[in-house]
């Protein structure tokens, strides 16, 4: 079990041994289909957590609903699988409540860009120190294969037998346009690279958007379609230049991976209205009578 060091319930923190990636696994076995791209992302997350020596008792993995949103159950940290599309506002609440926590949000393209799409721009522009890992497979898996907001135009599924009428969302461009302070893309077939991106995202003080291309072998197997198009961002790409990042986001010839953009700007929780300690500590020794006096 988790050591008590790092948690506030213990007076004197004790040194703890670094946890191996496998020690971040929970007792719940993943429900994903064999060959699911999300296994790669999960393995990368375990690796990243181990590298950063995250304390499971001080880490919260939040998700919405969908295949990839099952992920918190498979990680032995605190977790919260919320409602469909609500991962970002819930994760924001966790982070505001206690800025000392490492908060990682996860989910799929349907959860994040369709039903939860209304929250995307706002979480991004508030810039809470949250790392948001989207497992984008361009299809709805848990409901068995309907078109998703990132599916290609004309995509034929059971819900779109004559082909989808909707052009796909460009999540990377969307995040950049909303003012994201860290944006990266990886491919779940390259878990080492995804690990590096997640490590960098967690270390980034602000909202880190990480789009992982994570194929669904059951309903839209894109491994062979995507693998030849995956390439690192061009040498000389300047991740401090939002315009360059935007141009890369709109590339049609390839699926570039790497850190598109990074900047430092104040986080939500560093804003003056939010104290830098857990809010629950503000509840001590308060006498409301002082406030009531102003109504005399």
């Amino acid at each position, binding site marked *: *079990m*988790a050591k*008590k060091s*790092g*948690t506030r*319930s*213990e007076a004197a923190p004790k040194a703890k041994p670094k946890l191996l990636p496998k020690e971040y696994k929970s*007792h719940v076995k993943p429900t994903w289909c064999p060959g699911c791209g999300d296994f790669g992302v999960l393995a990368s997350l375990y690796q990243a957590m181990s590298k950063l020596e995250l304390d*499971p*008792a*001080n*880490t*919260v*993995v939040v998700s919405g*609903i969908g295949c990839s949103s*099952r992920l*918190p*159950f498979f*990680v032995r*940290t*605190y*977790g*919260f*699988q*919320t*409602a469909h599309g*609500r991962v*970002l*506002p*819930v994760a*924001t*609440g*966790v*982070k*505001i*409540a*206690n800025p*000392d*926590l490492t908060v990682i949000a996860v989910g799929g393209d349907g959860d994040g860009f369709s039903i939860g799409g*209304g*929250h995307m721009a*706002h979480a991004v522009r508030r810039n809470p120190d949250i790392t948001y890992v989207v497992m984008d497979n361009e299809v709805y898996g848990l409901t068995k294969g309907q078109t998703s907001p990132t599916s290609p135009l004309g995509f034929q599924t059971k819900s779109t037998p004559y082909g989808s009428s909707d052009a796909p969302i460009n999540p990377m461009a969307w995040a950049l346009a909303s003012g994201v302070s860290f944006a990266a893309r990886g491919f779940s077939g390259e878990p080492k690279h995804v690990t590096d991106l997640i490590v960098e995202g967690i270390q980034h003080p602000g909202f880190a958007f990480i789009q992982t291309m994570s194929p669904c072998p059951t309903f839209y197997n894109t491994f062979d379609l995507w693998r030849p198009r995956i390439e690192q961002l061009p040498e000389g790409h300047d991740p401090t230049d939002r315009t360059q990042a935007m141009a890369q986001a709109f590339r049609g010839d390839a699926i570039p991976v790497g850190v598109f953009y990074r900047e430092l700007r104040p986080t939500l929780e560093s804003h*003056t*209205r*939010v*104290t830098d*300690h*857990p*809010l*629950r500590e*503000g*509840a001590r020794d*308060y*006498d*409301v*009578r002082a*406030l*009531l006096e102003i*109504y*005399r």
Partner: protein
Amino acid sequence: MIVDTLLIRMGGESGIDNAISAGDVLTRSVARSGYHVHTFRTYPAEIKGGPVMFQLRAGVRRVPSLGDKMDVLLAFNEEAWDLHHKALRPDGILIYDPGEHDAPAGFQGTAYGIPLDRMARDLNLRKGKNLVALGALTALVGLDFPMLQATVKDMYGKKRPQFIESNRMALLAGYQWVKDNISEELPLRLAPPDTTHKPELVMSGNRAIVAGALAAGCRYFAGYPITPASDILEEMARRLPEVGGATLQTEDEIAAIASVVGASIAGVKAMTATSGPGFSLMQEMLGLATMAEVPLVVVNSMRAGPSTGMPTKMEQADLNIALYGGHGEAPRITLAARSVEDCFYQAMQAFYLSETFQMPVILLTDQSLSHRTETLPMPNPDLVPVVERLRPAADEAEDYQRYRLTESGISPMGIPGFDATPFTATGLEHDESGAPNYTPDMHTAQLDKRGQKFEIAAEALCGLEPPLGCISYGVPEEDAEVGVLAWGSTAGAVREAVEEMAAEGYPVAALVPAVINPLPSDRILDFARGLKAVIAPEVNRTGQFAAWVKAHTELHLISLNKYGGLPFTPQEIRAKVMEFLVAEPVKPAPESESVEEVAHG
């Protein structure tokens, strides 16, 4: 004539006559001079333009309702006369501006044409006619003029020091006009305040909710602006940072409650506030909070619905969604505040219950209660226990099970960063560890667990005394023949009507619970025993509360429904009660008889 209560209404054009700010000044001034007050206001949904109305009822004793006929109408324009004169007593006082219109033909009362606008302009105060009017009004009904001057200085002096002198002159101009021009005896004067029963505070329902929430330890609030709950968001945004908390205005109500759920998972007492349209959007998150057993408080300040409805009008029509909203079986504790003072206590109680039972608690108020100001005694926060959710014991980390099946249904909740007991909360049905589990046995057991908490809450809450539990008014219950069973802000009109009738000797009693779910059924059955009729007044068309009570007690209540967007008046309650009273009033027993025996109900 010297009166114990005085009802003054001011009507004018939004953005021009400043009737609302005049009302705020007058309210504070009258309360400071020792009177009890109860205000009511209507305003258009438009930002500029449209008729506004502010009403102040002042009394020597507590003023529980907005009253019936007004004694004084201050009409800034002719439209105000047209809109409000029907509610003016035939022998009442009208103050009007002859620059706006002539004295209305056929008015039987006393009309004073005072050149409000001209006097203000003479002082180079383009927007000063409301102050001239206040000065005149104060002189006409015998209010405390020096207190009015001091209050204007306190309220506006800091913001606009350059106007201190001209404001003073405007008040004086109105006051002096009455002294100079009216020589005959004034028809109406408010009796001097009762110095033994001085009110202590004057505040609005929404402000009282904020104070109660802060007293209970609320340190995170998220909201989306919506009438009539926006000023809870605004007040929280101002106050929470002062006490080490935080406020977030979110992109919509879904995000507001979602972030509140997240903050609560991280161990903070958290709240959101909204009105009907936003409350509809919050249903999915309420279901999640029930399933994942997350404490949180949601305030719904009801306005007239459905849909966008009438944002600036009150209604008690969101009881059904509070009780039944959302899918699946997710019992939610539902409280309804009865007065401004009660807003404070119920907000505290909401946190107490949500933390104790680890579930969402809904606090219902409404537009009229949210925005009215009322005088009240200094609330006593020590009357409500301030507690925190049950946490895992230090030796529990090894085999911690977040959703352990316990006898009470309550299981320890670990807080990330504070307890070394990681678990994953979820809206899926789950086993004791929190892992998804769809087996028939586990779903049954976990539904029982969540239901058990609610049943224990029901037991704990049924016997609650005021201020947290049922409040009764009127004659001792065993002496009553007709009863009134009310909820929410309708309590005010009921209290006034029933107390007045009881004082006249009519056998009438009223009961007003604060906890609507779980309903204190036994208490209600005790109250109804032996009564010829129980009347249930509520501001909705279908009698939602009456149906709820019937479902739990099989009592057939006599519904009294009003649904125009305005609260009940005491007269409306009285008229309905009278229909069921055949007996002549019995004069109350002289006070020399044993009061103790009579008082026990």
